């Protein structure tokens, strides 16, 4: 890393650390759920360290307990992760020029928050010529800084949850603390009317269609929010809501 890249990396790490309470809480909740599932200690730790996708882990736990075949749980994981397929379009526009291993690694590490914050800062993708001329990879290092902080904080929360699940009483309502911590990330983003319309739509659709299999309510909420967001968008093009 050059000094310039290092500066950008640290700045990315700092950006993500502002959401530390939210990440730690969700990690903790996921860790506790794994500890209370049918997984052994080592299985739970391995799942936390390598799968690194909270919603898909939580969706898999009851299926593992029910003894469903591995392939069925993997199909479920894929469906639950469909939002990331949509996100990967946005990453593609920025990082298509990188070597394959870098692209896969960068994609694997880009969870919800990293993508959200990255797109908020770099709303317009570089042209192909700009990508080739970009030899410093500063955007990539900023994203990697965020990813590193996100991964470390998530694992701290998650592993703490796995190890100390029995000492944390259910009555604390910790799941709900996770939900509240997410409020603090979302509300500042509702600074324009199109974002507010998109948000209300996403929330209503996600709740109304909660009964859908494979958490497809998330994808449905995204699609309807995009339609409503585009319809109500009066701002100049290229701005991130």
């Amino acid at each position, binding site marked *: 890393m050059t000094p310039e890249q290092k500066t950008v990396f640290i700045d990315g790490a700092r950006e993500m650390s502002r959401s530390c*309470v939210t990440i730690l809480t969700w990690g903790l909740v996921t860790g506790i759920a794994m500890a209370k599932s049918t997984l052994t200690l080592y299985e739970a730790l391995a799942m936390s360290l390598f799968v690194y*996708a909270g919603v898909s*882990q939580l969706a898999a736990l009851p299926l593992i307990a029910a003894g469903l075949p591995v392939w069925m749980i993997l199909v479920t994981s894929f469906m639950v992760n469909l939002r990331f397929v949509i996100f990967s379009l946005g990453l593609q526009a920025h990082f298509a020029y990188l070597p394959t291993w870098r*692209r896969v690694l960068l994609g694997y590490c880009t969870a919800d928050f990293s993508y959200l914050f990255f797109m908020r800062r770099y709303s317009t993708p570089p042209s192909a010529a700009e990508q080739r001329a970009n030899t410093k990879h500063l955007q990539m290092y900023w994203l990697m800084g965020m990813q590193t902080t996100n991964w470390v904080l998530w694992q701290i929360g998650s592993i703490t949850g796995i190890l100390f699940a029995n000492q944390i009483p259910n009555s604390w309502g910790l799941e709900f603390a996770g939900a509240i*911590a997410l409020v603090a990330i979302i509300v500042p983003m509702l600074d324009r009317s199109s*974002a507010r319309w998109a948000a209300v739509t*996403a929330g209503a659709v996600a709740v109304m269609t909660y009964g859908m299999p494979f958490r497809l309510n998330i994808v449905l909420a995204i699609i309807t929010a995009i339609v409503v967001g585009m319809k109500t968008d009066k701002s100049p093009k290229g*701005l991130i809501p």
Partner: protein
Amino acid sequence: MEFNTNIFLLILGMSLVTAWTRSFFLILGERVKVAAWVLEAIRFAPLAAMIAILAPEIFLPASASSVSEFNLRLPNIWGGIAAIIAFYLTKKMLSTLVIGMAVFTAARFWL
């Protein structure tokens, strides 16, 4: 330590699914060019995804399987609304958590 081949395969497979879905179009590299209108449209995706994960946590019971279990006696709803108002007024994570959890806890006893 007991070794369960099925769980091992599952964790390996789920890790690959994470990598595959998150780099789905990114893997294709410069072979594809994403249209400008697509990028324009997916600006709303991360916000919508976050809300789609959050909203059921606030408006439905933890054990719910569908929207039919919605009811106003749910403490989550009041705690959630309190948290939104608290953040709107104070812009602070800590006060949002404290006020949200306080209203949530109070609602659990009274409703």
